[in-house]
């Protein structure tokens, strides 16, 4: 069931949220202007409201398939992506709405994609799990657990091959760390010293299986076996995410050093919306996280303490985010579906560029 958090409830949460972030004094955070800080807060709020709206659309049967919500994890994508320079790149898994918004994709095209509309970012061909924006260095949005990690490593390989000073961030969930492809990618990244930061967003559960029931040992520490640097950070604290990620991103960009970062975070919703979420964790646990560790509340509390945010501005940002999400839903609703003729477009580059086609013969069959 969807529970729409009210502004009042969230205000109460803020009072019991964590104390002022120790990472606030780290250089990368110190140099944020007041406006930068507000923008980071706004970005998290926009993701939250977008996803809450998408959940309502899902419940209204406007959206097919799966919907993996990022609610509770917003500080990870926003903190990490806020550090991106023009040659930094992102790959992630299927819980990708937060990263997509954090790299600057428009919520209209994202919502329309969920609705399966032609105006969606992938023209209605990818859906929730498959958002892409190569013009924003965002390379998906991948459906198979761990399958995107070799791809992110390959992007880092391409950066190094082209002598471009940049880094790839390859995000995965805690469930991905046991996939072979991830370990193969770790080995290649370290062997060839590729500029990639592997980011484990550890929300405690690989689908419905808790970390202690699925993974031996400390997740990021596995990097040691590959002679890679590693670290952990508090994913509820945006400043901490930025502080830790900045350190490893610099090592990647400047020294071509790969690393593994484990971000401790939490999702409030089920694995997907189809997950009734009543078999593997207690409601009290979810409520405890909501009350004490919500990343938006924690950061709000921080910024209020800094004198950057006040009630009026919070309300204004919240209302704007809600309005934006609502407008996105209206945009998606009003948009056309792709046509049956569109099914066979975007399959082959050659088929879509017939004047430049060099091959002959049939590309499609019936």
């Amino acid at each position, binding site marked *: 069931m969807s529970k729409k958090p009210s502004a009042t409830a969230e205000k109460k949460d803020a009072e019991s949220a964590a104390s002022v972030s120790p990472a606030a004094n780290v250089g990368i955070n110190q140099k944020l202007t007041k406006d930068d800080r507000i923008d980071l807060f706004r970005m998290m709020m926009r993701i939250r409201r977008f996803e809450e709206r998408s959940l309502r659309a899902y419940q209204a049967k406007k959206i097919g398939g799966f919907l993996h919500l990022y609610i509770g994890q917003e500080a990870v994508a926003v903190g990490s992506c806020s550090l991106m320079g023009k040659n930094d790149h992102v790959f992630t898994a299927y819980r990708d709405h937060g990263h997509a918004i954090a790299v600057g994709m428009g919520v209209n095209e994202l919502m329309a994609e969920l609705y399966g509309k032609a105006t969606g970012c992938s023209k209605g061909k990818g859906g929730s799990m498959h958002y892409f924006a190569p013009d924003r260095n965002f390379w998906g949005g991948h459906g198979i657990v761990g399958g995107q990690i070799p791809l992110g490593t390959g992007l880092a390989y391409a950066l190094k091959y082209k002598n471009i000073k940049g880094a790839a961030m390859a995000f995965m969930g805690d469930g991905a760390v046991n996939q072979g492809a991830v370990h193969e990618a770790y080995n290649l990244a370290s062997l060839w010293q590729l500029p990639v930061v592997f980011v484990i967003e550890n929300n405690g559960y690989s689908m419905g299986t808790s970390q202690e029931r699925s993974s031996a040992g400390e997740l990021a520490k596995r990097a040691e076996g590959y002679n890679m640097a590693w670290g952990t950070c508090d994913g509820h604290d945006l400043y901490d995410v930025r502080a830790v990620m900045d350190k490893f991103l610099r090592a990647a960009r400047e020294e071509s050093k790969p690393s593994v970062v484990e971000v401790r975070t939490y999702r409030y919703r089920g694995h997907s919306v189809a997950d009734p979420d009543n078999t593997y964790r207690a409601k009290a646990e979810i409520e405890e996280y909501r009350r004490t560790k919500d990343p938006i509340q924690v950061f709000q509390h921080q910024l209020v303490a800094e004198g950057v945010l006040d009630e009026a501005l919070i309300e204004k940002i919240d209302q704007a985010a809600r309005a934006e999400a609502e407008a996105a839903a209206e945009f998606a609703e009003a948009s056309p579906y792709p046509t049956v003729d569109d099914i066979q477009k975007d399959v082959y580059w050659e088929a879509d560029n017939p004047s430049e086609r060099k*091959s002959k013969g049939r590309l499609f069959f019936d």
Partner: protein
Amino acid sequence: MPVISYREAIRHALAEELERDANVVVLGEEVAQFNGAYKVTEGLLAKFGPNRIVDTPISEAGFIGMGVGASMLGIRPVMELMFWSFYSVAFDQILNNAANVRYMSGGLINCPIVIRGPANGGTNVGATHSHTPENVLANHPGVKVVVPSTPSDAKGLLKSAIRDNDPVFFLENTILYGDKGEVPEGEHVIPLGVADVKRAGTDLTIVTYGRSVLHSLAAADLLQKEHDVSAEVVDLRTIRPLDIDTVLASVAKTHRVLIVEEQKPFASVGSQLAYMIQREAFDELDAPIHRLTTVDAPAIYSPPIEAEQLPNPQRVLKAALELMA
């Protein structure tokens, strides 16, 4: 025209494309220092250096996936699989990521990767190393699949594959690596999707590709000499895109079709061909379409028996005579 081996023809294509385009890199197990498990890449490391010719660990899911990711940023990786049989451990990278990323991104991302290596039985290496996955690969819209039978075709088609903006899977054959033939020097490019009539004939059409082309040509000679039957041999060369028009033109001439392939029969490339031929040329057929495949079992090790499990000239001859009866 110089006479060179199939192996050298592939090497020449690689070298010429490495020379032509700085974004082309060759990666795979033992491709550099070892000079290639089958010596296809021999000498390339010395000529192009370790940035262009890269030894990978035995880690197909990792390095193939890495190549797919690199291709998204404009690198043109030519990845060697020591055996195509090892595609199974990289299946997700090849057929989820490479095949689908253009589609799922609504056409925003291209994947100009080539994956090449041998895919054949007949070398007594048992079932794990003898897969012929061209039907499995070609079942995935978004990919192209090439199976060359001669040195000239191998060179011309590989050059096209490397220049192609879609993922191309190039299936060679360890038994053919030493075969020699005339191959044009320099810019010899054969477009994908063009079949080649390797032998003209009037009484039946043998549709085939890869090493089975050679068995079919040998059988066609026997048919002519011993049975006065004139067989036309059509080499598909590319499985997808498919040049069905050349096949249909031949069927219209001979009215009888034998498909010869080193595939297991169930849902093979030949199954697709048979469907298309009956659908598009039913009235041209004077007999049911006949097919010769690998005998339907995992690849047997026993050397003399494996030769009988696979297509060979005698089996092709027998099948052709059945068709003509």
